[in-house]
Structures are given as C-alpha cells and as structure tokens.
C-alpha cells in the first residue's frame, strides 16, 4: 500500500514520493473532514484540496488516488504551464482509513489552524473548534466503519478501535 503520512499539524503531507506543503490560506482541517464525511455518506469519490500558497494540489480518491498539481506555474508563465497528475494505487476507503487517525492525533493543532486573517483567534474559539473537530472525527469514524463493513462479506464484521485500527470480532 502507498504510504500516506501527515507531519506536524498538517504542514507536510506525503503520499508515496509526493510531498505537499499545506498553507494557512484555507481552513484545511474542516474542509478535509467535511469532504471526507460527504464522500463516506454518499459513497462518492473524495476530493481534497491543499493550498500551497502560490501553487495548488488536488487529491481525488476513488478506485485509485490521483494527485494533481499546478506547480509547473512556478517555472513557466501563467499562460504557459501544465498541470501534472500522478496515480497512486490506494483506494478511497483505504486512503481515508490511513489519513484519518493521523489527522486525529493533531486535533489540538488543527483547532488552532491559523487561517483566520482577522487575528481574532481567542482560546474560546480554539476550544469550540476543537469540540467541532472531535464531533466530525467521530462521525467520520462511524461512517468509515460502516463503509468498511459494507465491502466485506457478511459475518466478517469489523470495528475500529480508538487508534482507528481494524479489530475483528
């Protein structure tokens, strides 16, 4: 399976040999979790966006995972650059199963994700964001568990423990 790793509070994101640096220009924690919840709830492809400040990365995960970027823009002019895409052999549910527990470890940092340009970030605001993130994670975990069970044969029920590993019963 392709290695997917998130370092620090999501500042560096690895999938295989691809590294993305996530900037603070978008509220990545909520955007990602809401996209994951939507994808799991509706059995639809997952699309995640990473704002790298001057360049952009899109992750599209379904039967494989595609990573698309416009980094060529840095080398060429705005009108003469190419988008690149790579394909990683990791299916949507496995991909989500890999990244969610890693993201959850960083909740306190993600709650303070510094996207807010008006700098009115109070400890109360951080606390309420942390609570909302916990709720979203719990919802995603449940949906992921249901989805993983749906793709397995009946009777082969699985549960995710607190570390999001698969525990068979």
């Amino acid at each position, binding site marked *: 399976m392709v290695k997917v790793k998130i370092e620090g509070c999501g500042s560096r994101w690895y999938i295989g040999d691809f590294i993305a640096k996530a900037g603070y220009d978008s509220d990545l924690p909520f955007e990602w979790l809401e996209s994951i919840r939507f994808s799991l709830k509706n059995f*639809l492809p997952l699309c995640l966006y990473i704002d790298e400040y001057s360049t952009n990365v899109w992750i599209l995960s379904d039967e494989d995972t595609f990573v698309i970027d416009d980094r060529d823009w840095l080398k060429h002019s705005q009108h003469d650059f190419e988008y690149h895409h790579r394909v990683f052999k990791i299916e949507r549910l496995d991909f989500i199963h890999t990244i969610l527990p890693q993201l959850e470890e960083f909740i306190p940092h993600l709650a303070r994700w510094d996207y807010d340009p008006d700098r009115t970030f109070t400890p109360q605001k951080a606390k309420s964001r942390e609570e909302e993130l916990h709720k979203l994670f719990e919802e995603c975990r449940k949906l992921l568990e249901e989805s993983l069970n749906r793709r397995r044969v009946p009777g082969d029920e699985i549960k995710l423990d607190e570390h999001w590993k698969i525990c068979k019963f």
Partner: protein
Amino acid sequence: MQIELSEPKNGWIEFQIGDFIVGGSDLEDLPINWLKSIRFSLQNRLPLCLKLNSGSFQFWILSDETTIIVENRKTEHRIFNIGKKNLIQKLIPEMKKYLDGWIFWNFNSEDLTPEQIEDRSNRLRDLIQDCEDILER
C-alpha cells in the same frame, strides 16, 4: 466553451466539454450523485468532483479554477479552460432539460410506483433548486 449532456437513454449518457465527448452508464445514479456533489461543492466552496462510469472506463471530472478530466486507463489528463462556477452554470440547465429521463435513469418505468416516481422527481427538483439558489446568492 460548449458543455452539453445528451438525453439520458437506455441507461447511457454523453457529456460534452469543448470537443471532448465522454460516456457514462447507469451503473451509478448519475443525476443524484452529480447534483449532490454540485450542491456540496457550492455550499462549502470546495472543488467539484464528478464521476462518469461506463464499466471498465471511468472518468473523473475535477473542477476548481479550471476543469481537469482524468481517466482510469490513461496516464494523461485533459484540461479545459472553464472554472467550477461556469461549468455548474452550464450543467444545471442541461440537467433540467431532460428531467423525465433522469427520473427513470436507472429504473424501468414499470418498476416504480407512482409515489416512487413522484419522490424521485421531487428529489431531483429539490437538488436542482438548492444548486440554483446557491448560485444566485
């Protein structure tokens, strides 16, 4: 840029973007899936992802500042110079054009009760309305 959806017929649809035409089958509930994805993308201001499935061929349409189509069998992708909002503004009227066809997209007309037909019709209309409301804001 030309954006067109053919009339849904016999579980098959053709989507045209520019000079590129791609087909999709009723293996998936395309109208509901596409409208849900469009609504989610508009509501959350996130990139749009649509899927066309024709069995062994699968296409994913990713639209943000530009529109990119990737295919499961190819290593190359196609780029179209149309942003997400413009794409949606052209797609919604196309979806409205053949609403009756979408109601029976992956169902035989005789398999659905009048109540089920009405439910599905209302569901599609509601989703379209939601998308149009957000677009107008």
